[in-house]
C-alpha cells in the first residue's frame, strides 16, 4: 500500500492515484502528463540578462528549485 502524503506534489501521492488504474490506462495517462510538460517560459523582468539569481536571492526556498534537476 502506497501511503498518501500530505504534500500534494509528492511521488507517493501521484502513485496512489495511479495505482488503481490498469497498465494500459497508466500508459495513456502518463503520455498525456508528459505532454503537459512541453512548455516555455520567459522572464517578466527587464534588465534580466539571464541573471536569474539577481531576482530571487532566496530562490533556493522556492518550490521547484531547478538544482534538483
Amino acid at each position, binding site marked *: 500500500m502506497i501511503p498518501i502524503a500530505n504534500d500534494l506534489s509528492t511521488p507517493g501521492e501521484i502513485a496512489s492515484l495511479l495505482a488503481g488504474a490498469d497498465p494500459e490506462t497508466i500508459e495513456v495517462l502518463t503520455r498525456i502528463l508528459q505532454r503537459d*510538460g512541453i512548455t516555455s517560459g520567459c522572464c517578466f523582468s527587464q534588465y534580466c540578462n539571464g541573471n536569474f539569481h539577481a531576482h530571487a536571492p532566496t530562490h533556493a526556498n522556492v518550490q521547484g528549485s531547478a538544482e534538483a534537476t
Partner: protein
Amino acid sequence: MRMRQPMRMSKALLKRHDASELTDLAQAGYFAELPARGLSQGPEAAVQRIAIANGVAPDRSGCNAPCIVHLRDKLWDLLHDSTFGFALAVTAPHTHWIGERPIIVSLCQSGYRVGHLALHAQGLYTPISFLLTDAGPLPYEWADDSLELTDAELERVRPAIATLCEDPEVAGLPLGLTLNFRFKSLFSEEPVTTVEYEESHVPGETASESRIARLQDVPHAWADPAFGQVAWHAFSDREFHLTEGHANLLAALRMRLGSLRNPADADRILQQALELVSCLH
C-alpha cells in the same frame, strides 16, 4: 495609421517575406496595429489577459484554462493529427518591443536572438508567431533564414492556422500560436523546454534583444519568481477518448502536478511515481 485591408492581407502574410516586403508592411502601419489586435506589451500583460478571460491563471499544463483547452480541441477536430501538437505551441502573445519594425528571431551560438534585428536585403523571413484574429492569423514574429524551416513543414502548418481563425470562437481567444522550432525540426517529437530573457547591452537600459536558451542551460530560471510560463502545448485530450472515470483521474493528477512551476520537477515526480506503481504490478 490603420492597417489596410487586413483580411485580404492575411493569407499573403503567412508566406515568407523579403526585407523590402517587411519594410512595406511597416510603412503600411502593420506593426503599429498589432497591439490593438491582441499583441500585449510584455509577458505579464499577455498572461494576465488569459487569466482574466478564464477567471484563473493558466497552470503548467494549461488544462485549467478553458480557452487553451478550446484551442487545442479545435486543432484536433480540424486535423485529427497529434503531430501538430509537436509543431505548434499555444502562446500568451506578447512582445518586448512594441514599435514600427518586425520582431526577428535568429539562430546564434547559445540558442536564438530575438528583437528588432537588422533586416538583410538578401534575407528571407518566415512568419513563426501569430495572433488569432477575425482577420486571419496575423504574424508578429519572423525567423530569418538561419533557421531551417522547410517549405514542406510550412505548407502543413499554414493552412491549419488559417483555418482555425475562421472559427469565430478561436479568433476571439486571447491566445496565439507559434511554430515550435526551438532546438528541433518543426515536427520532431522531442520538444525542448526553453527560457527567454531580455539581454541589454547597456547596463540599466531597456534590453534591445532577448535570448532563448534551453532550460537545461539556464537551470535557475524556473525557480525565479520573476520568471513565468508563456507557452503551453497544443495537444488535445480528445485524441484518447477517455472515459469519464479516466478523465477525472487525469484531472486529479494534473491538479497535483500543475502546482509545480518547473516542468522538470513535474517530470521527475511523475517518473518516481511510475516506479512506485510498477512495484505494485
